[in-house]
């Protein structure tokens, strides 16, 4: 059904590079992207001149990037700096390789949000059909408030509880404690979670991701080339996206129908089932979307996501260890990119205490509004 299905080793990730995460004075987004790409190239054992496609995300100054890296890519483009764009950015790279137009593509993310004082919510945060007109006069703003409202509906419809959100926050912090790169490593208890201050009730500080500076780069290439490179390749076994933008910021079904469609496609492409998945990376800008994604991508029935995350399901040692780096909630809000890096590192192995044993398949879930899933495999089939 797709080129990936016809040939399982079509596309592989051969390089991963990350910067430090935190307050990184002296680096703008472009600089953080260069830092990440240099690490990725070293990881892949290639020269920057071997990269013939460059797709930048969030760092918008692709021209400065190419000037400073002194490269001559045959494709240069940049995607808007929203986390929803991460899946699509990787999709462009995969398609360019599958088509045979490009051999080796770098996707590069740089985010200086912490040092630049990035804010979500407030006057500048106006997208879709007119928040300044119909939302701001009532004090409505921010992605966190949208998730607070969606969670309230989920709670009213299905009985989902704040403690179930807390289970997600506690689990990811537990993982971050095992990850030297994570920004927040101090373990938290459910009591700590429940005592954290409300930002937009019912959501608390510990339901929110961590805005930081950092960069991530991935280098992808075709399977033939990947075999002979420095690292063991990690294969892109499936990738699917379905938009739910048309439903607005507050979809009736929490994005369920769109995610179901994306799930069907990604599993068919990868020719695997949910039961085959060893670990999950779930886009966690706020805790509720983890529940919506688990339901939408079919890990539990609709409405059961809250109960599903109880009892350590998402923790190391649980059935679906999730965001083993701490995710956006505790490692750093790198808008999906640090989750790709962690997926690939889990499949390569060697992550010490946070390694999921015998990892063969890791699935990325992005709950919306550009609902995306990627299945990465240790083997090509």
């Amino acid at each position, binding site marked *: 059904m797709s080129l990936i299905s016809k040939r399982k080793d079509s596309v592989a990730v051969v390089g991963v590079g990350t910067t430090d995460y935190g307050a990184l004075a002296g680096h703008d987004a472009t600089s953080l992207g260069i830092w990440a790409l240099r690490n990725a190239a070293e990881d892949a054992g290639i020269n920057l001149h071997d990269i013939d496609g460059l797709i930048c995300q969030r760092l918008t100054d692709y021209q400065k990037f190419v000037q400073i890296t002194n490269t001559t890519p045959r494709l240069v483009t940049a995607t808007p700096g929203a986390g929803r764009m991460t899946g699509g950015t990787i999709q462009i790279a995969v398609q360019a390789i599958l088509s045979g137009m490009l051999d080796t593509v770098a996707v590069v993310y740089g985010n200086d949000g912490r040092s630049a004082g990035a804010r979500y919510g407030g006057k500048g945060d106006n997208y879709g059909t007119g928040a*300044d*007109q119909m939302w701001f006069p009532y*004090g409505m703003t921010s992605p966190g408030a949208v998730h607070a409202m969606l969670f309230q509906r989920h709670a*009213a419809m299905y009985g989902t509880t704040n403690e179930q959100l807390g289970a997600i926050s506690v689990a990811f912090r537990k993982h971050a404690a095992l990850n030297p790169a994570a920004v927040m490593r101090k373990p938290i208890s459910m009591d700590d979670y429940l005592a954290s201050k*409300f*930002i937009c009730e019912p959501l608390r500080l510990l339901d929110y991701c961590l805005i930081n500076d950092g960069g991530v780069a991935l280098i992808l290439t075709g399977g033939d080339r990947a075999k002979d490179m420095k690292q063991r390749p990690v294969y892109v076994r499936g990738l699917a996206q379905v938009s739910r933008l048309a439903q607005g910021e507050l979809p009736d079904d929490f994005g369920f129908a769109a995610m179901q469609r994306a799930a069907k496609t990604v599993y068919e492409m990868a020719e695997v089932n949910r039961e085959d998945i060893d670990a999950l990376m779930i886009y966690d800008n706020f805790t509720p979307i983890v529940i919506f994604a688990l339901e939408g991508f079919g890990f539990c029935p609709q409405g059961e996501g809250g109960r599903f995350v109880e009892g350590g399901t998402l923790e190391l040692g649980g059935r679906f260890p999730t965001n083993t780096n701490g995710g956006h909630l505790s490692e750093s809000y790198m808008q999906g990119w640090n989750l790709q890096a962690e997926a690939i590192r889990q499949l390569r192995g060697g992550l010490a205490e946070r390694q999921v044993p015998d990892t063969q398949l890791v699935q990325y879930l992005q709950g919306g509004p550009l609902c995306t899933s990627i299945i990465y495999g240790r083997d090509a089939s």
Partner: protein
Amino acid sequence: MHVDHLWKGCIVSDYTKPLPPITEQSKPFWDAARERRLQLPRCDHCGTFHTYFEPWCSHCGKEGVHWESLSGRGRIWANCRFHKVYFPGFAADSPYNVAMVELDEGPRLMTNIIGIPNGSLSEMPIGMQVEAVFVDVTDEVTLVKFRPAVGDPA
């Protein structure tokens, strides 16, 4: 006359919360609110009400809308309560509620619920019947807020 003019100017400048940019497209909505009417664009073809101000229907895809009044009655569809202050003008109100109200005619509006004694979310649950209240905030702008319904239940 001169004094009255200054006094009015003073009232306007005291209002520090965000005001909607009244555009050619949105003016009929805000003009109606000043007249204590809730009206929205409605598709000429399929009858869907919109909360955006464009001539295209997101439901049937056709061009052409007209303005039509609504009952102002609906139910709370979602709610939250802001503790963090994103707009300086709301600092004195924090924590304050925001609700999405689904009107009886179908469209949904962001709003604030007023007349809630303790201001808690449990006093304004999802599903609660509400009705529009028109609150003048400046000479030009009247906001459409909602309060628990006191009329006959629909």
